């Protein structure tokens, strides 16, 4: 029986001011990004609540990428200060509950970093591919 290769489903929350423009930059430069990424534009990475990430996993995402402006570049000056504290804590919690914390990742991508956007998304998709489907990890 042929085994279909597992294609991870990744939800990427991108901040409107940096990463979303960075993704545009990658597209304009004709850089290839993996099609596994479902982009969701938000106004700030600081609005990504733990509830939102957990519900995204609940809805079947195999991995969640949170992307925003580098420290000091936040459009709202300190929105990403919340993100940088919250996401590592949430990763710890996932680990405590037995979900591989590598399924959640935080990355800063600026509006000028098209190549970095491609590189980060590719690396994350490959990482989650090796982890396998989340449904196998949390099967009831």
């Amino acid at each position, binding site marked *: 029986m042929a085994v279909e290769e597992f294609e991870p489903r990744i939800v990427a929350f991108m901040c409107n001011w940096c990463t979303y423009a960075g993704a545009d930059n990658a597209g304009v430069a004709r850089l290839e990004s993996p099609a596994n990424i479902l982009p969701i534009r938000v106004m700030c990475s600081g609005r990504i609540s733990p*509830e939102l990430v957990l519900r995204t996993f*609940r809805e079947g995402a195999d991995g969640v990428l949170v992307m925003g402006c580098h*420290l000091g570049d936040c459009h709202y000056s*300190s929105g990403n200060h919340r993100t940088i504290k919250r996401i590592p804590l949430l990763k710890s919690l*996932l680990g405590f*509950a*037995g979900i591989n914390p590598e399924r959640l990742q935080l990355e800063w991508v600026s509006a000028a970093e098209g190549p970095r956007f491609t590189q980060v998304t590719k690396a994350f998709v490959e990482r989650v591919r090796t982890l396998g489907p989340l449904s196998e990890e*949390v099967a009831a």
Partner: protein
Amino acid sequence: MNEQPVPSIIEAIRQTVAERLQELDGVVGLRRSSEGVAPHVFQQGDDLSELEIVPRYPLTTVVSRLHKSFPEIRLGIVARGCDERAFVEMAKRNQIDPDRLFILGIACTAEEAEECHCAAPFPKHLVVGKPVAPGSPNPVVAEYDNTPLAKRNAFWRRQFAKCIKCYGCRNICPECFCEDCAMEDPAWVEPGLLAPPFPVFHLIRAMHMASRCVACRQCDLTCPAHIPLTVLYDLMRRDMEATLGYIPGEDIKAPPPLSVTLNEAPLLVNTGHMD
């Protein structure tokens, strides 16, 4: 849990309450009536022989309601170590007014400290009783780092499968005061599922408890399904202390680190995102 306090302690706290009632508008404590023990605002002239200190019961939400309804009222509160820490966290979040609250602290017994694995079984404003040594740390938490992911997952799925979604953990919690609870919001937790969906329901609560949980163990004691919730919350407390140097209830001047900028509450570890 049901053991009676040493008579001298209960007598001494009744005496203290009687004295403080001379100048305070009321003292919040537990009162025994024919129907059981319940929260009560003792006022001058009340029969203080009805004042009890067991079973433990958190009174922060009672005080919060009183402070909001009566903006001038000055209250005393019979409080253990965990109660005092809970008031500190509630004060930071503007749920009580620390200038109108006076802690009448009682120390827990060594047995109580051990039962709760309590690291600080007495309040800073100690009035009655002698401080006892901390209880031993929770053995499950101590061994947790050596537990593989799959085993952790199996453990919690088994535990959470028992949940009857009674919200007892939230309702008893001295730190839960939101008028709209994320655990009841259909945007985050789809309604009608029993046991509640994993990972949303319990992990939302664990995340919300991260900078608040004062390790009072009330949720563990209340849970009708005996889910050891404080194992998860203790791990989060440990993480908070390691990454942000924050111990809930320790210092009334320390801002809740998740709600402020890096300048006000810096990260102590490099998570690789500092550039």
